[in-house]
């Protein structure tokens, strides 16, 4: 839902060390002979980097694929954010990549076969504006980014399955596949929403539409399946579009601006999502599958918290004790609403039960709002 959720990105990034000029090679010198030029030779088993120290500013990478597989070349920050990348470098071909890099530590990676973490080499960029960061927080951000990517990767097949059922006109199958197709997205929502253009396409509710905006995405299909009870030709187009839009998200997740504090605030924002949309049953108003989204939001918040816990425990041990307790308590409460592999329909959850869920969300979200301070101390 496109509430104002940009704060995961814009929230006073304390570790924003990088501005990137990604991809294209159009203006770069093909020979890459400047002082800030580096040659990267990718083979099937190696990633040879001609130099590892640079002055801050523009760098030019001349990549050569001397292996037998298609490769990719990436530059990563310590938190595993993609600074720049070039995909699809065929065997025997060359590509030039440029980037504007601030002082700090980075890694250059080659990915023969375009899979996995790649073969990595550390490089150092020196000069003005060196940013001191806590390596434990860098590691936490890197691990979180990796997890977010894995969630996005895992979502695609589920969404494809959902879309295929719609294409086949199978209402019952599509209904069953609706909630599971959203779990990865709901777990990582603050990051997903940080790309302002994807969320309005995929996760807008009827009341969230801007004037003139075409309604697309999950909730439009939800209405067709549960309220209109039919699948039209338009729905089939929309289902295919949903897959395309989410594949776009999957590709861009690695470039999201994530810091330790934005992770912490993102965790709180996941609970905000629950507090405003799910606890009232507004989010999935046709399917009443709100509890699936609710649980996924809690899991996403917990993931971010678990990764930041070591540092938070040092700065604010009482907060960590409280958060452990509240996460356990809300999950225990949610467990009482499980039904088979899924959840009870939210229209069977009465006002008194909703109040209890709302109280549990407040009990967790209030201390969770203090997590950013505990990692930024």
């Amino acid at each position, binding site marked *: 839902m496109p509430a104002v959720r940009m704060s995961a990105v814009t929230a006073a990034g304390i570790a924003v060390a990088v501005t990137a000029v990604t991809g294209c090679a159009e203006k770069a010198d093909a020979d890459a002979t400047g002082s800030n030029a580096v040659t990267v030779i990718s083979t099937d088993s190696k990633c040879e980097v001609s130099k590892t120290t640079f002055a801050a500013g523009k760098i030019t990478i001349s990549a050569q694929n001397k292996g037998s597989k298609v490769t990719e070349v990436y530059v990563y920050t310590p938190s595993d954010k993609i600074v720049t990348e070039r995909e699809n470098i065929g065997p025997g071909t060359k590509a030039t990549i440029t980037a504007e890099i601030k002082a700090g530590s980075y890694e250059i990676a080659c990915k023969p076969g375009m899979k996995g973490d790649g073969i990595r080499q550390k490089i150092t960029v020196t000069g003005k504006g060196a940013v001191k960061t806590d390596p434990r927080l860098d590691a936490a951000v890197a691990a979180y980014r990796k997890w977010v990517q894995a969630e996005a990767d895992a979502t695609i097949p589920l969404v494809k399955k959902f879309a295929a059922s719609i294409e086949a006109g199978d209402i019952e199958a599509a209904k069953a596949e609706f909630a599971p197709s959203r779990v990865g997205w709901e777990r990582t929502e603050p990051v997903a929403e940080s790309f302002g253009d994807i969320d309005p396409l995929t996760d807008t509710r009827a009341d969230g539409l801007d004037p003139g905006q075409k309604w697309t995405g999950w909730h439009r299909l939800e209405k067709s399946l549960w309220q209109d009870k039919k699948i039209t030709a338009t729905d089939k187009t929309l289902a295919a579009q949903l897959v395309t839009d989410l594949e776009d998200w999957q590709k861009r997740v690695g470039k999201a601006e994530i810091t330790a*504090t934005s992770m912490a*605030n993102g965790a709180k924002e996941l609970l905000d999502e629950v507090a405003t949309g799910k606890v009232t049953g507004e989010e999935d108003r046709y399917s009443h599958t709100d509890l699936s989204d609710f649980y996924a939001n809690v899991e996403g918040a917990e993931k971010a918290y678990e990764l930041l816990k070591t540092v938070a425990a040092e700065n604010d041990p009482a907060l960590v004790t409280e958060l452990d307790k509240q996460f356990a308590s809300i999950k225990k409460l949610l467990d009482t609403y499980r039904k088979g592999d899924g959840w009870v329909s939210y229209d069977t959850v009465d006002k008194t039960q909703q109040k209890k869920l709302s109280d549990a969300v*407040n*009990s967790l979200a*209030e*201390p969770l*709002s*203090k997590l950013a301070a505990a990692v930024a101390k």
Partner: protein
Amino acid sequence: MSEATSRRAVLGWTGAGVVLGAAAAGGAVTVLKGDTGSDTQNAASAGAAVEFHGTHQAGIVTPVQDRLHFASFDITTDDRDELVQLLKDWTAAAERMSKGQAVGEGAVGGLAEAPPDDTGEALGLQPSRLTLTVGFGPGLFDKDGKDRFGLKKYRPEALVDLPKFAGDALDTRRSGGDLCVQACADDPQVAVHAIRNLARIGFGKVAIRWSQLGFGKTSSTTPEAQTPRNLMGFKDGTHNVAGSDKSAQTKHVWVSDSDGPDWLAGGSYLVARRIRMHIETWDRTSLGEQEQIFGRTKGEGAPLGKKHERDTPNFKAMKEDAHVRLAHPDNSGVTILRRGYSFTDGTDGLGRLEAGLFFLAYMRDVRSGFIPLQKRLSATDALNEYIQHVGSAVYAVPPGVVKSGDWWGRALFEAAAAAAAAEGK
């Protein structure tokens, strides 16, 4: 930082409150001296601070402020230590807010990435005679028949569950509660700020069950002032316990050492009732009938057959079922201290004014106070045609917080802890 973000500091005041007069029983008004060094300001108009500490809690005999935010909480934790810590945190926050200071580290100046301790909407506002008064509902002591926090045997005998009165249409979602906080202030924003911040501190330990905003005081504890009118346009509760009348308070309001239990000495009992008024039908009632129903004139507020508001009523001049005739202490023998407020929560779904009286009364014993009085009223009061009791709660109100470091409910929890230790638990 605390001083830097105090509301007084924002105002450019000195921050050094000057206490005038005796700061004895909670409710003494302190007046803050302006930094011009000139004269002291009128307590009410200056939005001064009410002394938080005292043998009784402030907000009971304190001259009634203009605005109310009353909140009733359910206790959600089972951990006694957590509850005690909450009461300590609440007391500390209440003490600060009563002085016009921000909660914790304040609303501004902290980390940009984290939400501030104080929500900030009272920045720049004066203390506005804010009082915060806490009460303990039956659910603190035992819930569903089970002992709670080891406090069951400390439940006061007089903290009874109210009987069902004729005509009651109680909404469970506007009734009861394990704890309550009454916030009274001359500025509604100050009262709302106080409840909001206490609720926030309480998340995870307590949850708001219901709350009520009130805007026009309907009774006065200052007899020299005119009795305010309720939403029916009448003065009601003229004969109230005066804030200055120590002997009446001792007799009717404060739990004495001999009343028991020990931990409640210096405390009181609070009955809260949300009384909906059928405004539209009332407004279509003739003036003569309205006056007959109340037993008072509408203009002056004089008892029927008399001239002035405070004239001694002649009950025989009133109809048998006139409100004053049934409720007046001289006739019913019941004296309670009322400090209720009018409320309006907009309109209901039918376009009727959702309004009435939020009745708040303090007394030494509910069994000899509110219960017999309400029995009498609910059975025969002519007013019943125009009102309906829709919410109800009762609380034991612990004694005051004597000094810094003391906290709401200390005597109760320490007594229980000592008894548990003695039993070797």
